């Protein structure tokens, strides 16, 4: 599903040049659950952003479902992104001014899904995440675990093929964290590919494979399953 080769990304400010990705190559197959680990600043997040089509690489090749997307412009990337990729962030990133329902509905609006259909799909996914009773609440009124469940709901509502999770349990206590990990595992078992960046060895053990990064390169790969 994802095939990356010789990927490079360099951040430049006026005085400093930081190499975030240094000729990175790896592959993720459809249905896989991959964890990416490494110390701060090793390039994991950059990788996730590029894979998530939020950022573009400076050099190298990135095949998404066999299509070269490294040189896509923003409009094309946005289009591909909204149809195929769901995101889960450490800090949830829910919009404070929208209710639970409206937050989850947002991707469907940008996909152009009609209102009755949206309602059906949002309710289905909220039901599945067991936060239906909170549908009219605003994010500030929810606990961290509930917020992250909403974020997961939003990530999966348009049935993406790939979910990118950036330290999804980073802001949660262990029981809420385990719950979210269980959700991701369930999604993976239903066929969704998941790439997760994490610092937590515990979380990483939910995955099939761990890629360890250092200084913008992969150093080892552990296959867990």
């Amino acid at each position: 599903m994802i095939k990356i080769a010789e990927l490079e990304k360099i951040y430049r400010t006026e005085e400093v040049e930081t190499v975030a990705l240094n000729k990175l190559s790896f592959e993720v197959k459809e249905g896989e659950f991959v964890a990416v680990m490494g110390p701060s600043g090793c390039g994991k997040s950059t990788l996730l952003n590029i894979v998530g089509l939020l950022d573009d690489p400076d050099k190298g090749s990135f095949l998404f479902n066999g299509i070269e997307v490294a040189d896509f412009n923003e409009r094309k990337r946005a289009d591909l992104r909204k149809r195929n990729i769901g995101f889960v962030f450490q800090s949830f990133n829910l919009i404070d001014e929208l209710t639970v329902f409206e937050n989850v509905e947002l991707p469907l609006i940008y996909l152009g899904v009609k209102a009755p259909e949206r309602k059906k799909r949002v309710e289905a996914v909220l039901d599945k995440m067991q936060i239906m009773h909170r549908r009219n609440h605003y994010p500030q009124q929810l606990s961290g675990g509930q917020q992250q469940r909403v974020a997961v709901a939003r990530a999966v509502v348009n049935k993406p093929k790939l979910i990118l999770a950036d330290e999804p349990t980073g802001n949660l206590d262990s029981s809420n964290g385990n719950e979210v990990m269980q959700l991701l595992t369930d999604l993976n078992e239903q066929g969704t590919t998941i790439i997760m960046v994490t610092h937590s060895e515990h979380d990483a053990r939910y995955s099939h494979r761990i890629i360890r990064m250092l200084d913008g390169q992969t150093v080892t790969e552990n296959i867990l399953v």
Partner: protein
Amino acid sequence: MIYNYLKIAIRNLLKYKFISFINLFGLTAGIACCLLILTYIINELSYDKYHPDADRTYRVTRSFRNAQTGIVSLNLGTVAPPFAPLLVNDFKEIEKITQLLPNGRTPVRYGEKMFNEENVYWGDEHFFDFFKVKVVKGNPAKALNDPYGIMLTEETAKKYFGNEEPLDKMIRLDNQLNFKVTGVYKAFPANSHVHPNILISFNTLKDTAVYGEENLRTNFGNNSFLTYIKLPKDYDIGKMEKQFPAFLNRHMPQGGKFKPSEGTALALQKLTDIHLHSQLDYEAEENGDIKRVYIFSAIALFILLIAGINYMNLSTARSALRAREIGVRKVVGAQRKEIIAQFLSESVLVSWLAMILALLLTWLTLPWLNKLSGQQLSIHILLRWDVIVPMALVPFVVGILSGIYPALFMSSFRPVQVLKGLFKVGGSTISFRRILVTTQFAISIVLIISTITVFRQMHYMQQKELGFDKTHIVTLPYSAGLNDGFDAFRTELLSNTYIKNAGRSSRIPTGRLLDAMGARIKRSDTLEPANADIKFVSADQDFISTYGIKVVSGRGFSKDFSTDTGAFVINEAAVQALGLNSGEDAIGKDFGYGNRTGKLIGVFNDFHFESMHQKIVPLVLLIPTSANAYGNISIKIAGTNIPAALSHIEKTWRKYLPETPYQYNFLDENFERLYQSEERQKSIFTVFAFIAIFIACLGLFGLSAFAISQRIKEIGIRKVLGASVNTIVALLSKDFLKLILIAAVIAFPIAWFAMDTWLQDFAYRINIPWWIFVVAGVIAGIIAFVTISFQAIRAAIANPVKSLRSE
């Protein structure tokens, strides 16, 4: 999608109440000011447009010039009576013509009811073909046809006849002529350049006892007839005006070596241009001024611009708070154009809300503006399709213009950075915001300088030494009933100790000086035409002393010298215009004026007869051959007991003139009226300038609050390291004050140019002193400092531990 945008827009408005209030209030006030000014402008532009064929109706005007120098000395909106029939005869393209002769202040009497009427005109049978007013009684085609017929407005008829039937009633004018009421019409609307309340049949003038057919046919010197013509559609008036010189030479008698066309000219003026574009020496009523329309349009746009800038500034400043939302939207699939659309729909929504509130505000404040401006504006002026439709588009335009920059800016956020919290509002946007704030303050400073200049000029005009004493002078219209008994009347007046003096004259100060004849002065042996334009006033022996006018050489008229009835007294400007060396040089010189000759016996100082808009012109005083030339009586009273003086004047008046309405004015009030329209302009200008500055301050207040909130951590660190409250306030204020300084530098030349242009309208004007600029700059600085320091002090005295911990 739009629903989603609006939903979040409204929730954002409610969430950030303070900033929303500044935005909404600023835009509302801005749009309301625009609407108020728009009402005024539409009304100004609507003058005389509703008359039938207004676009092809023209007024014939006449100017006089010195045939030798070509310098124009007089411009009149009126012409002599023979021109109308001659024009119709010579120019076949004239479809219709009508004449309208103002009768000035006229005593009107019906039974016991007696009033002085101001808007009395002689109008002919074509009047109603030109002016669209509804005739409610009588036959419009005939009512002004027969001699001694008269028409009244409904109000005027009610004043005299109450509920009685006005038709066929007889009323008496000027104490000498009786007229039969032949019709009643609705009053002219406010947006007309004339407002005849009484129309007398023009044909009455043919009666020799009134004016005479001979005079109507041949008197080219009585230029007081308003004359209107109707021309075919799309007719090129230049074609007709080119033929006017030949027309004048054909019909006017040639006096001296110059052709008539060398000394006078006719021109055409579009009816609909009269109100805003005509500022002739004689107008039927005081007109508006297109310049005023421009000035207020500019102010309206300024205010809207300032409010729009507030929106841009605050939205961009606040963008950091919404960066995450934008990031999230992009992550879940929003494209840039969708983000732009979202923010634009937000600013359009705010503009729409502002528009609705502004309409309400306009409706509420219009009566107040009317009071201030002396206008009769109504919200109905705006309720027309050709106004409503563009007005409905205004929120879109304002919303898009003020929203486009924040929208473009915010939509460019990269989701990666904003979601990672790496986001910081970049340097380029800060400098763009600085440009906007500088613009706002530059406008504010221009307005402050303008306001101070306008105030100083008004003060100067009212305080400038006039050259005579205007206080405690009561003026009354002269009545022919006093022609024989004036001396007895005057003696009786002066028998009261509170009456100091009384004199008669054709015109009184505050009036215009429009009467002129040819002047001749003795050079070597003969009287030679003086190449000088000298106006004249008919005055009696007591005029100069009543006004306390200073005689600098020779003497004024005196009853002790019987020869004075043929003598002349001139002002210093006339001495100069006649090429005489000094006042002393003038005394005893032979002088000719019109067809009179006599000696120059005195020179008086140059005093301000007319308003400060006019230069002091050469002036000659002469004692008229007939007392009919007098138009006014001026009475100097003692300031100690004004009511007693007034009651004595009234008593004496009623004794001598029982048939004439008693009506007096105070001269100093006339002077105030002279500058009334400027005074009004000044107050309106001040109010709008204040609003503009206030909105700019609101914006600065919001922006500084925001800028400071972003530096809370820095302030905390500085305080921990030992910075005092003062140094922190200075630090936070410095940035903004620098902008004020730049704004001042930009504003100064603009303000100077604008005010210098404005002052050109006054013959006597102030120089713009340098300190006005300093004061304006300092005022702007203080306003800005107070606005900012309110926030800065709060930030500076806050406990640093709090701000640092919350990071």
